[in-house]
């Protein structure tokens, strides 16, 4: 693949994942600006360091970078709040993002699902989003999250059981 082809392929890849990546970051971090920052960081790192890798590796690499960026952000925020002795702000995914009119246009299930995803433990949330939404394999999810395949299965099963109730499943 020449340089222009790689650029086009990267552009297409990022355009395909950016909104879901933003959502994933948003569910974990709560704030829109923070989510945009970590997605941008993940895009930068992928383009600068891993663009030369085969394109089929971009997705797991990108989500690995994103997961690391989210974890880093959590650590920084925790340190900052520990320094100033305050409590961590509560994460409320989607709370300030949508206008009431836009909210009305959303499916009721989608809104309830988002709220419930926001309440999941971090690892269950990541497992669910990577496995169910991004449709990554158990092995890929394990590599991205840096945990065992067994742990992925456990986290995913628990998340699915909790969220599946919303669908009546």
């Amino acid at each position, binding site marked *: 693949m020449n*340089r222009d082809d790689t650029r086009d392929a990267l552009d297409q890849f*990022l355009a395909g994942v950016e909104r879901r990546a933003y959502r994933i970051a948003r569910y974990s971090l709560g704030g829109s600006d923070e989510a*945009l920052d970590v*997605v*941008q960081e993940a*895009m930068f790192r992928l383009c600068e360091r891993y663009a030369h890798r085969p394109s089929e590796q971009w997705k797991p690499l990108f989500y690995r970078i994103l997961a690391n960026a989210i974890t880093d952000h959590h650590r920084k925020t925790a340190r900052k709040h520990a320094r100033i002795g305050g409590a961590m702000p509560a994460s409320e995914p989607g709370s300030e993002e949508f206008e009431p009119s836009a909210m009305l246009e959303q499916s009721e299930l989608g809104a309830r*699902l988002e709220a419930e995803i926001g309440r999941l433990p971090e690892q269950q949330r990541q497992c669910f989003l990577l496995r169910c939404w991004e449709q990554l394999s158990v092995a890929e999810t394990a590599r991205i999250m840096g945990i065992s395949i067994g742990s992925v299965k456990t986290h995913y099963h628990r998340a*699915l059981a909790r969220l599946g109730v919303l669908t009546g499943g």
Partner: protein
Amino acid sequence: MTKPDQSNDRVDSATKRVEASLREALESRLEALPPEVTRRLAESRQAALTRRSRAYWRRPAVGGLALAASVLLAVILIGQGTRETTPGQDAPGQHATGPVAAEPTATADLLILAIESEDLDDEAATVIQDLDFMLWLSQQDDLDA
């Protein structure tokens, strides 16, 4: 009685239905992202791609310098090889046709290869020109000796 295989299949298909339903609900939420967010995501993407292009264009500098370093090494090795064989073997007048005569040709070939390389940028070209000059200077010293 239900066979275990059929039971597993039913569980799998029920799970798949739940997954599909959840996925659909999540996808529906993507459509509702505020324009400001989608605009900023697109900007971030373009900035990342531009950075990557800059990184790509910086690469030749590294490649070029590596090439220059390779030429330097080759020049040193060739220079050492000829110095080891030439002293005392040739009469002073024979330098022009002996191994020393072959040295500039080999080095010149390397320099031409380096200069024609697409990896070469201005900085690396300057390094190679300096090497060329140093080589020429060492040849003058050899001739003077």
